[in-house]
């Protein structure tokens, strides 16, 4: 019966993807395209060459970081919507370090820069955290506001003090993350991301700290009664979540973009939230879903270019994947459906669906 659960967990997203492509195909046919050709391009784009395979990993890297940032925060019941801002601030610091510090060997420079990026992201995440605990402010709006501030600040830097050249953008950092396997732009950032996911998985499920963090996320009052330092844990999770996103920004900077310019980091924060939730707030799930999104996007570029279909078709398909994947897992968790699938093997009603809604989210802290 456990096995059957596992199978369902895997089948649902696959069905969701197939269904989304079916609808996407219908759309393409409806506007006079050839769906088969379109999807062949998609496959070719995603896996057709070494460069394309590598490109998927390149695209997956920032998504994994923001996805992990969201996972970490939500597990502790805090709704950090500010990964984008934290990502950007991490990159801002890294570009500063990368373009001003001289005389260090690349490896050391990058290490320092990544650490500083993570710290800055953490500090940026600390703001909504402390405001939540200290002033009772809703972290969602604070983090959204801070996203705007970070993006504008980045804009100020690349068009003002850190500008270089004729377009508003900063200089490029010269210390670049090592590229891997000759797969085009694929760089060691993906390894950092995956290792980080492993560490978070271990922390979350195999350490005392992770356990407490999850407990706070699921029932902060009970956690407090059982002697867990709730406020400290919440702040900590904001900071770590921010640090993960900030590290992501640094990695993206040193690995892929090399400089800041308009549009840097755009959308990664919210994509991360969707990815984390589809990945069931599991770090490993987050990595897989992020990779899936990346593959879809890489393939989509080629498909769009090859067929001349509007790129919005891909956005539609991607949104449909979210819609179907989440609706699908909610659907199979409906008591009636559950019973039908799982049959007679459950003596008590094992509703799992509330798992993703840590109940401290809407609760002000410290009101107990």
């Amino acid at each position, binding site marked *: 019966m456990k096995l059957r659960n596992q199978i369902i967990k895997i089948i649902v997203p696959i069905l969701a993807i197939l269904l989304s492509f079916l609808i996407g195909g219908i759309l393409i046919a409806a506007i006079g395209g050839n769906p088969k050709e379109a999807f062949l391009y998609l496959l070719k784009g995603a896996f057709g060459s070494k460069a394309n395979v590598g490109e998927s990993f390149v695209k997956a890297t920032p998504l994994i970081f923001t996805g992990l940032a969201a996972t970490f925060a939500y597990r502790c019941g805090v709704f950090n919507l500010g990964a984008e801002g934290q990502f950007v601030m991490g990159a801002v610091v890294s570009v500063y370090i990368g373009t001003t510090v001289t005389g260090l060997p690349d490896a050391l420079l990058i290490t320092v820069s990544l650490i500083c990026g993570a710290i800055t992201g953490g500090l940026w995440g600390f703001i909504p955290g402390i405001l939540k605990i200290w002033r009772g402010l809703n972290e969602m709006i604070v983090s959204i506001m801070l996203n705007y501030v970070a993006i504008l600040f980045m804009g100020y830097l690349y068009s003002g003090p850190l500008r270089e050249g004729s377009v508003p953008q900063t200089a490029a950092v010269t210390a670049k993350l090592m590229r891997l396997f000759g797969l085009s732009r694929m760089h060691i950032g993906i390894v950092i991301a995956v290792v980080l996911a492993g560490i978070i998985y271990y922390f979350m499920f195999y350490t005392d700290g992770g356990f407490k963090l999850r407990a706070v996320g699921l029932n902060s009052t009970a956690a407090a009664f059982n002697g867990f330092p709730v406020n400290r844990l919440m702040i900590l999770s904001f900071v770590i979540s921010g640090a993960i996103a900030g590290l992501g920004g640094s990695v993206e900077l040193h690995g892929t973009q090399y400089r800041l*310019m*308009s549009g840097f980091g755009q959308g990664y924060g919210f994509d991360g939230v969707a990815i984390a939730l589809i990945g069931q707030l599991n770090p490993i799930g987050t990595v897989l879903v992020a990779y899936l999104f990346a593959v879809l*996007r*890489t393939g989509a570029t080629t498909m*769009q*270019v090859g067929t*001349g*279909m509007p790129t919005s078709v891909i956005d539609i398909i991607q949104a449909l994947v979210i819609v179907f994947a989440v609706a699908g897992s909610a659907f199979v968790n409906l008591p009636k459906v559950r019973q039908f699938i799982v049959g007679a093997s459950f003596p008590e009603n094992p509703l799992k669906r509330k798992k993703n809604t840590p109940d401290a989210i809407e609760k002000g802290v410290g009101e107990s």
Partner: protein
Amino acid sequence: GSSQTSATAASQAEGTTQAATQAETQAPDKTYKVAMILDSSIADGGWGAACYNAMVAAAAETGFETQYTDGLATADFASSIRSYCDLGFDLIFAPGNQYSDAVKEVAADYPDVDFALLNGVVETENITSLLPDAEQIGYMAGALAGLMSKTNSIGFIGGLELDTTKMKLAKYEEAAKAVNPDITVYSAYAGSFSDTAKGMEIAESMISLNDVDVMFGDASAVDSGAREVLANYEDKYDIGQPGDLLATQESTVIIGSVVTDNARMLKICMEEVMSGEFGNKTIYGNLENGSLSVGTFSDAVPEDIKAQYLEIVEQIKEGTFIQ
């Protein structure tokens, strides 16, 4: 974003016949293909539209097949260009210096594909930069604005702080002051090329605060917002760019345009692609070589001012307007 293979059927047919005659000397059955990438929309009534139209117009003359992708995110510039290269496109048109990094990176991997970089400053084996003269554009707009303003206040809206935009603004101001020393220039940046509403608010505040009566913008869709506001007033005008706006649309607001003939420069690129001489150069666009020109005037411009203005344009061309 979106895209479309080739231009309309009519122009394509026309294009192919022409291409056939031109290309006979080289590979007779080879159809050349050009693709354009864009971060904004081709239907923004400004920069994107002008660049797209330029590509289609140039392709119609040279027989190239065209395709485009618009609405691209920064992170997707490179992969989109790469996909076009993989699909055997001969020329990639990147209309803005923000694409330099992506172009340089991909160009290194695809030596057989040629790249045209508008407003760029890169010259390599397979990258040619196209550089319309921002100084002259600024002068042309500023002179007209200065001549037309009755309130002695004129406005400028920028999208992003591009060097070219800053240059245009500086020269706009110089020129306006040269023709009318009492002029004050008010400027603002929208921080975007697409936030039409921002354009409206900026125009509205410039009018109400400073009684600005002539405006010029370098911000695509943001400019159309400003025009909407100007239309609500009498005797408030706008100067268009980079297309000849009055040639394609009716407007009570637009008094004239500073026209950049990107098509001409692109056509040069395409011909060089076909002849194999591409690369290692910058094609300048200015009044002398006909890539910049004065567009259609509206009835709001009195004949005497028009004459005065055309004279100034002649001076700009000769480099004698402001030394």
